[in-house]
């Protein structure tokens, strides 16, 4: 029976604050400072879970974060490491992977058929009849391990932080603390990150003297100004020492991801105790020495009544002393450094009754403690490019070489007395700080905004540390019997041997075939034993077999912490508050939120065609081009010619990439001799700007042109409709007489009392229209002035949908909708705008050839049945077949014409007016459409535009 001990000198529990909680449906009580696992044990429970495949009862093994048997569900939080997570008041803790209960588990019947569940058994069965596999799959998927996700879980507050410390120390044991202290004393800014809830590493559950050393170091570390994060993990080391840290202890965030650009990283991750492989090694009551030491010394929990200890090192020896002090009877101590060995445990499924030792001896016990060696958790070093090398004399891996900005200390680097470890840590911290100085100097010197640096760049400090020694340790991986290697995945050494014999005999193949090391501990406990068993099967050494590469993250991170605050920028025009107040239906266009309509798009169309409408077109990309060489730039970027555009005029241009594919279009106006305003599509605003800069900076740095994006410096409003001139005349002194201000002209002046407005006569709608570009701080004012001044003219706002309908009525195409990633310029029907006689323009050679090719043609179409609007992207096929010839790219019902119209891409042979197209509707039914003579369905001569 497990129970709470009398107060222990190093215990971290606060007995004055009991915490009630529920475990497996039973009321329990723990204390502040307890982990969930220690509290459960203290309440007399030893079984935490059932294993994944065979559903065998499992108890604590390591009693820490890596315990493979101690995953629990805490309220809506699945897969909680009960060996690590601190107990909180009132939580409901449930075992996972049990059905119907922890005590009675129907799936445990799997044990009976265990001999058939050989590795890869899935692959070898359920093949015939194939139709039945989905049914098998359904059953098998109920065996999925792990807790349950409540998909209604609310998204809690998560955030992130960037930091740029000189030194990050991963691991707050004695060496890590010494490194942090020395670095801080050398003047470095230091972030010390400790996975456990307190600093000290293995000293935390050590002797009084050891804990005193730890406390002293911790006090010095804190006094030196080191930023200390406990219950936090360095999860990854990425390129250029970009270090990921998950902080689980932040006061306002559930978990916080810290991204540190560390000048140097000190890895002091310590060592992880390795389990031993033998028959019955997963029976509840088999524990590692670290587990019993934690339970006794930190949490005052008695782990059993009568123990056998199999010890091959100091940790095992110390556990004997701890157990004795806790009143556990020591039935036997078996020394792994000589010839002693553990062969098997015997007992029930739920408990050990006896331990079989080498030499035929069997000892009664309910607890077996093993201390057979260590795994070096070299994950962070792997991520830094290190390929650790196995040392058989010490039975663990050691680093073989890290970059200059990654240093290793503590147990990962070697062995020594406590003093030696601290001394090595201290030297490592000094070295890290010294190197950080050189790196900081370089960064500061290279960064233009930074403060000036004095003197020459210091040399990178040389490594003059006295290396730590290596204490011999016997190679103890597997006994003479077979047992579990991967507890999470329920993979035994026998499985590994047979998989290797089958041909899966490289580490990677073996891993994939058996799933060993693929579970939640990601090989922290299992990797070395897996490699050792494979080496044994292949008759090779561990070094020859090699090891797998540990991938990030070092410890799992919640998706919430990785996401952090979810920043999804959104942008709005100055008129946005008005749109919201006036019932506009919002639509997302890239990052912009725009009005799709104000309730009645067809009515909005009619109002534009009969009165006057206004639309907020602020997202239209706008670039100011300044300089004498602007025409050269325009000639290069557009397919048409820009040599003779007068001041006060605007022109449409088509822009292609070098492969001749249409990339953008828009209108550019000449405001003065050397100043032009270019407009782009809304989605192209950013890319056209970068495109122009690219050509200017790399191909023509001698051209005198400055490009400045002014998209949101102006609020853009299109005023469209037969009454638009009347409306504008009420708000501006600019001469609007058609002779003075004709179609495709631009004027600047005052509108509604606002200076420096730009107005040009163009429009997408086909009506007389003025596009206003108003300084954005006054945009809402002008919008409201338009509505007020035009009330008697019937002025009303219209949205994107009305504009879409009107542009189809006019046969205007939209880049990216009516064109696609392969549409070359001639398809658009704008051949007159492709000036092959220009000396050069982007895409010229490709377009020269394209003019000769049979490319698809963009045409306007009417549906034969006026009421059918085929969805955009409906396919055009050869009659009577499924052969695709083209597609409807745009379609709407035209309220102006009272019929269904659209644009389509068709092959040249179907492009002439009157051609009948067979269109397949979503339902599969077919209808027909007829190609029109003009692109514009409405007012093909453009008379309404030019009035």
């Amino acid at each position, binding site marked *: 029976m497990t129970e709470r001990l009398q107060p222990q000198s190093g215990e971290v529990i606060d007995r004055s604050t009991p915490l009630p909680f529920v475990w497996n449906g039973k009321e329990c009580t723990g204390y502040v400072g307890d982990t969930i696992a220690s509290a459960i044990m203290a309440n007399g429970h030893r079984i935490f879970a059932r294993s994944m495949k065979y559903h065998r009862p499992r108890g604590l093994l390591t009693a820490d974060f890596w315990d493979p048997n101690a995953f629990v569900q805490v309220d809506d939080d699945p897969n909680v490491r009960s060996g690590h997570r601190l107990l909180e008041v009132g939580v409901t803790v449930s075992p996972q992977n049990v059905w119907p209960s922890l005590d009675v588990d129907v799936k445990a019947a799997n044990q009976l058929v265990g001999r058939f569940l050989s590795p890869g058994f899935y692959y070898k069965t359920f093949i015939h009849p194939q139709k039945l596999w989905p049914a098998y799959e359904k059953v098998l998927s109920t065996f999925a391990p792990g807790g349950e996700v409540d998909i209604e879980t609310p998204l809690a507050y998560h955030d992130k932080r960037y930091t740029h410390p000189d030194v990050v120390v991963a691991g707050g044991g004695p060496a890590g603390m010494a490194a942090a202290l020395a670095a801080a004393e050398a003047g470095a800014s230091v972030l010390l990150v400790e996975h456990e809830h307190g600093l000290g590493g293995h000293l935390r559950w050590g002797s009084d003297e050891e804990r005193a050393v730890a406390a002293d170091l911790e006090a010095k570390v804190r006094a030196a100004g080191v930023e200390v994060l406990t219950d936090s993990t360095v999860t990854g080391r990425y390129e250029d020492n970009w270090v990921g840290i998950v902080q689980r202890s932040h006061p306002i965030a559930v978990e916080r991801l810290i991204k540190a650009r560390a000048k140097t990283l000190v890895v002091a991750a310590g060592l992880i105790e390795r389990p031993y492989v033998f028959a019955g090694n997963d029976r509840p009551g088999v524990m590692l020495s670290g587990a019993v030491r934690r339970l006794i010394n930190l949490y005052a929990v008695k782990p059993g009544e009568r123990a056998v200890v199999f010890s091959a090192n100091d940790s095992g020896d110390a556990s004997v002393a701890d157990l004795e002090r806790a009143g556990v009877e020591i039935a036997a101590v078996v020394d792994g450094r000589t010839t002693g060995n553990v062969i098997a445990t015997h007992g029930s499924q739920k408990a050990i009754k006896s331990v079989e030792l080498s030499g035929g001896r069997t000892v009664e016990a309910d607890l077996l403690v093993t201390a057979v060696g260590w795994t070096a958790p070299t994950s962070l070093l792997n991520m830094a490019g290190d390929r650790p090398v196995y040392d058989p004399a010490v039975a663990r891996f050691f680093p073989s*070489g890290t970059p200059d900005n990654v240093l290793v200390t503590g147990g990962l680097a070697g062995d020594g007395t406590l003093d030696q470890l601290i001394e090595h840590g201290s030297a490592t911290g000094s070295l890290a700080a010294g*190197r950080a100085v050189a790196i900081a100097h370089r960064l500061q010197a290279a960064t233009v905004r930074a403060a000036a640096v004095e003197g020459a760049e210091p040399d990178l400090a040389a490594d003059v540390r006295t290396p730590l020694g290596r204490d011999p340790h016997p190679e103890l991986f597997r006994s003479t019997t077979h047992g579990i290697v991967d507890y999470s995945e329920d993979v035994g050494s026998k499985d590994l041997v047979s998989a290797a014999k089958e041909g899966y005999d490289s580490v990677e193949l073996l891993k994939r075939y058996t799933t060993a090391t693929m579970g939640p501990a990601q090989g922290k406990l299992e990797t070395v034993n897996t490699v050792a068993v494979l080496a044994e099967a292949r008759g090779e050494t561990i070094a020859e077999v090699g090891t797998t590469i540990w991938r990030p993250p070092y410890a799992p991170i919640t998706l919430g912490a990785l996401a952090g605050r979810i920043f999804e920028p959104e942008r709005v025009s100055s008129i946005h508050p008005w749109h919201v107040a006036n019932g506009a239906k919002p639509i997302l266009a890239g990052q912009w939120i725009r009005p799709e309509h104000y309730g009645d798009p067809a009515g909005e169309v009619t109002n534009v065609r009969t009165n006057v409408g206004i639309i907020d077109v602020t997202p239209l990309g706008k670039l100011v081009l300044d300089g004498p060489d602007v025409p050269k730039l325009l000639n290069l970027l557009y397919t048409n010619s820009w040599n003779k555009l007068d001041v006060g005029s605007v022109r449409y241009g088509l822009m292609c990439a070098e492969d001749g594919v249409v990339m953008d279009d828009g209108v550019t106006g000449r405001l003065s001799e050397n100043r032009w305003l270019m407009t782009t599509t809304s989605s192209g605003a950013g*890319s056209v700007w970068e495109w122009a800069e690219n050509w200017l900076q*790399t191909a023509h740095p001698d051209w005198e042109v400055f490009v400045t994006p002014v998209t949101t410096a102006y609020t853009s409003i299109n005023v469209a409709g037969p009454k638009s001139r009347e409306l504008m005349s009420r708000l501006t002194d600019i001469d609007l007489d058609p002779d003075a201000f004709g179609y495709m002209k631009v004027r600047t002046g005052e509108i509604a009392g606002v200076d420096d407005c730009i107005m040009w006569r163009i429009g997408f709608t086909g009506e007389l229209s003025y596009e206003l570009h108003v300084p954005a701080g006054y945009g809402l004012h002008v919008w409201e002035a338009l509505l007020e001044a035009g009330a008697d003219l019937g002025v009303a706002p219209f949205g994107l949908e009305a504009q879409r309908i009107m542009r189809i009525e006019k046969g205007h195409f939209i880049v990216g909708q009516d064109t696609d990633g392969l549409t070359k310029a001639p398809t658009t029907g704008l051949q007159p705008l492709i000036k092959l006689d220009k000396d050069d323009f982007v895409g*010229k*050679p490709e377009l020269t050839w394209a003019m000769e090719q049979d490319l698809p043609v963009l045409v306007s179409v009417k549906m034969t049945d006026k009421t059918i609007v085929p969805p955009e992207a409906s396919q055009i096929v050869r009659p009577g077949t499924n052969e695709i010839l083209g597609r409807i790219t745009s379609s709407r019902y035209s309220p102006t014409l009272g019929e269904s119209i659209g644009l389509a891409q068709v092959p040249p042979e179907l492009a002439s007016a009157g051609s009948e197209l067979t269109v397949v509707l979503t339902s599969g039914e077919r209808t027909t459409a007829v190609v029109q003579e003009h692109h514009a369905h409405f007012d093909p001569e453009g008379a309404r535009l030019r009035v």
Partner: protein
Amino acid sequence: MLLVPCPHCGPRNQSDLRLVGATVPRPDPNATTPEEWGDYLYLRDNPADWIEETWYCRAGCRRYFTLTRHQGTNEFRNPPMPGDKVGTATYTTISVGSSGSQPGANIEPHTTGGAS
């Protein structure tokens, strides 16, 4: 998060820049053949080795410039951080900005490919 040595701003996070692509000379548009032009549009050297490429410092100085990067290790010549790459003596060979060279002095004009 790779640190990219912008010659104007200094080392910046990769997310602040955009890799435009390998630097390829543009054929004379009035004398090129479809094969040559196809090569210009599509064919890039793709070595696991040093490569000349164009970067655009999108969030910083908004300049295009050429850098030399190793496509196997992502190391830049002019490494911004010493000793990051294992097994290559990167630290002592070249220095950035500290030897009196003006930021931007190592930019060469070049032509870019057709990617947009």
